[in-house]
């Protein structure tokens, strides 16, 4: 596995941008991010033309809901609008709610492993500022079981992840104050990390622990049970590209760009599991299990097994902190702590930027922003930056292996990838 799929790099848009206000669309976003990514990686459109003649290149577009946000489907075909060099290149759109980027990555990885293509362009994209937050909240409800969990509910996802917080608190018999403090610390870390990331949505926003702890009131409203605004990631417009390659192509590429194949990271492991779609079914199924999200844990274990690695080998994590409660649960799923003892890892600074197992040095979804279909691709790009020592101000020192967890729905579709050299 680890000798099959390499990552050559990529680029993301500035997640602070509001493309609707700029008078631009998902299409202009795709154009900019792909142009930027190819320039950064050092692959020209002529090179794509050359590979396409031999049917060695394909594109994979991760997108959740362009139909509703942009009144447009069939996004896989839209790269042909970016540049005529992409005429004829196989391309399709992949959807798995907030894990849409990962399902696109998964398809790309699979095709390269199967030796169908040598180069795979994976582009995650979501334009979300086209509608108000309440309308957008309703659109996002379709990532849950809409009829049962979202219909007529204002902001359904904060409520679902608020329920996750409730279950964690009850199941592990935690002290509420200590647990909420741990969630506030997760929020503080993500915002603080995002300040170092020049593409993060919240890099100029005010947030500190004191504010994260001050839940309730107009300035930090409750939106889902115990969870308040500071516990939530916020939607934004954004796109990200990562470019994957076969070993043969990576050798060619390394020679051409003066790099060593050994310095180019490879996908070492992956995991993909789907949990019952409703949160209630998840809760019932997990009664008696050590993990509240056993399928998330299983996905991580699958990835470790395939990579022949364990938590001790992972230097940096990018996790799906759509809410503080989801990052909390991920800590034990990664094996950083025992389930029920995540708060101790947080209190001890283990997951902080300078800690032993830093999570989301980029700022995560809470800090970088969450354009849903782009998030998985953005996470992979951040792992690439970390393990190639190119993350700039948010570089984790000496990172060799990184793991990402991207989830769709209420931890329903789980994807994990491990990247390293």
């Amino acid at each position, binding site marked *: 596995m680890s000798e099959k799929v390499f990552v050559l790099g990529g680029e993301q*848009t500035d997640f602070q941008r509001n493309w609707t206000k700029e008078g*631009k669309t998902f299409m*202009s976003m795709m154009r900019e991010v792909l142009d930027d990514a190819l320039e950064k990686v050092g692959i020209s459109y002529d090179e794509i033309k050359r590979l396409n003649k031999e049917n060695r290149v394909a594109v994979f577009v991760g997108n959740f809901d362009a139909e509703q946000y942009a009144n447009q489907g069939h996004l896989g075909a839209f790269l042909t609008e970016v540049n005529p060099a992409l005429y004829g290149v196989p391309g399709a759109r992949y959807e798995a709610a907030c894990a849409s980027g990962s399902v696109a990555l998964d398809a790309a990885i699979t095709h390269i492993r199967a030796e169908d293509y040598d180069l795979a362009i994976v582009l995650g994209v979501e334009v979300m500022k086209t509608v108000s937050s309440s309308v957008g909240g309703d659109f996002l409800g379709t990532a849950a079981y809409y009829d049962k969990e979202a219909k007529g509910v204002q902001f359904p996802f904060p409520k679902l992840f608020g329920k996750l917080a409730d279950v964690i608190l009850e199941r592990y018999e935690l002290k509420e104050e200590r647990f909420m403090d741990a969630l506030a610390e997760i929020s503080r870390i993500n915002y603080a990390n995002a300040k170092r990331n*020049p593409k993060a949505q919240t890099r100029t926003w*005010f947030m500190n622990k004191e*504010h994260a702890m001050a839940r309730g009131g107009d300035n930090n409203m409750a939106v889902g049970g115990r969870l308040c605004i500071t516990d939530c990631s916020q939607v934004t417009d954004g796109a990200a590209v990562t470019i994957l390659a076969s070993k043969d192509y990576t050798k060619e590429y390394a020679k051409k760009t003066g790099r060593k194949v050994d310095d180019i990271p490879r996908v070492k492991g992956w995991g993909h599991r789907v949990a019952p779609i409703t949160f209630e079914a998840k809760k019932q199924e997990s009664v008696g299990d050590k993990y509240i999200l056993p399928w998330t844990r299983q996905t991580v274990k699958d990835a470790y097994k395939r990579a022949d690695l364990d938590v001790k080998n992972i230097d940096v994590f990018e996790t799906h902190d759509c809410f503080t409660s989801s990052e909390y649960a991920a800590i034990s799923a990664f094996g950083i702590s025992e389930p029920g003892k995540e708060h101790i890892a947080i209190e001890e600074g283990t997951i902080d930027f300078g800690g032993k197992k830093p999570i989301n040095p980029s700022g995560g979804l809470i800090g970088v922003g969450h354009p849903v279909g782009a998030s998985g691709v953005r996470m992979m790009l951040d792992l690439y930056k970390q393990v190639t020592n190119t993350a700039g101000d948010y570089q984790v020192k000496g990172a060799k292996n990184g793991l990402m967890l991207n989830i769709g729905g209420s931890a329903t579709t789980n994807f994990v990838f491990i990247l390293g050299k």
Partner: protein
Amino acid sequence: MREIKTVTILGANGAMGSGSAGVIAAFGGAKVHMLARDVEKAKQGIEAAVASVKTDTIRARMIPGSYDADLEKAVAESDWVFELVAESYEVKEPINTRIAKARRPGTIVSTVSSGLSIGRLAKAYDEDGQKHYYGTHFFNPPYKMILCELVTHSGNDKKVTQALGEYLDKVLGRAVVYTNDTPAFAGNRIGFQLMNEVAHFAEKYADKGGIALLDEIMSGYTGRAMGPLATADFVGLDVHKAIVDNIYDNTKDEAHETFKLPGYFQKLIDAGKLGMKSGGGLTKVVKHADGKREKFVYNIKTGEYDPYPKFDIPFIKEARQKIKDSDYKGAMEVVKKASGVEADIARYFISRYISYSLSLVGEVVDTKENTDGAMGFGFNWVPASAFVDFLGGPKETIKLMEQSKIPVPKLLKDAKEGKKFYELGDKLDARSLFKG
């Protein structure tokens, strides 16, 4: 890095005072003495500060007070005194005298002035005070507009400047631009040059559409969210006058004549028509009985307000579509090749803006990144250097300047072809400032 635990804000109830105080109390975690003419006004300032940064956590460390009762005590215990009172020597100088008497050695004192001489204001202080006196020109509203022009004068100490710059950048999250003590500093000197010269052109082309036409020509496809004359109307014609008069009186550069206030601006000011804040100026919006709003524009020839016209200028339409599609170089190609008086005007002002921005390097700022930062972060205008890249590089830009009879700055003459001219790309994506 300099530790700033206690701050005194003078002018705490104004929009800039409360907004800046909010940033300092929130990002800086500082205790802030909020001083105004009376305690009630100071309390209003505290509420405005809380609302501006949207966090109740700062309320407890903001202490209301009045100039009469609390200034000396507050200043004596402050690490930084930030003065944001009215923009005149007559108001600022007596306050500086009081601050100078009360401040401890080492305390930083700064003013938000957008145009007064920092060196002159510093004279109220002893040697240590002068060393620690700065212009910290925040932009409005401070939480959203992150630019801070850090204005130095000859009496400053480089180490203190560096420490203050780091604090403003790393702790308060400001995009810090270092400028010399010159009239209006960097942002306003460049911004108001363009706005005022556009205003003159509106008069020249009053028969063809005047104010509305010029704002159409200088709209989003030229790299700004709001037209220059709409911006003048937004900031207020009185403020506009104060800034351009100051520059006109105190500078003598190639664009000197363009800083003369147009006669119709003065006419509007005399009639109390100052812009949006007074219900009308260059434009006005009328709400009809049925609730519908209609926009009108001042007719420079007749002195009446006409319904705001719509224009159909083919090259602008084409350029806008290119911007909408994120084809920025394509849009600039359209502008370069278009014919007609409107296209001539567009090329003239694009050239003027780039030329004037770059010409100030060496006098107002030390590097072009500072003027680029001032325009990008302070005005949300595409920085001059980024424009050079979108136009196809230095040679192409020089060609455009020569066609428009605009002086070519040395910085551009010396620039290497084929290398990116804009160097702030990692901090500010200039593409985001074009509007389609």
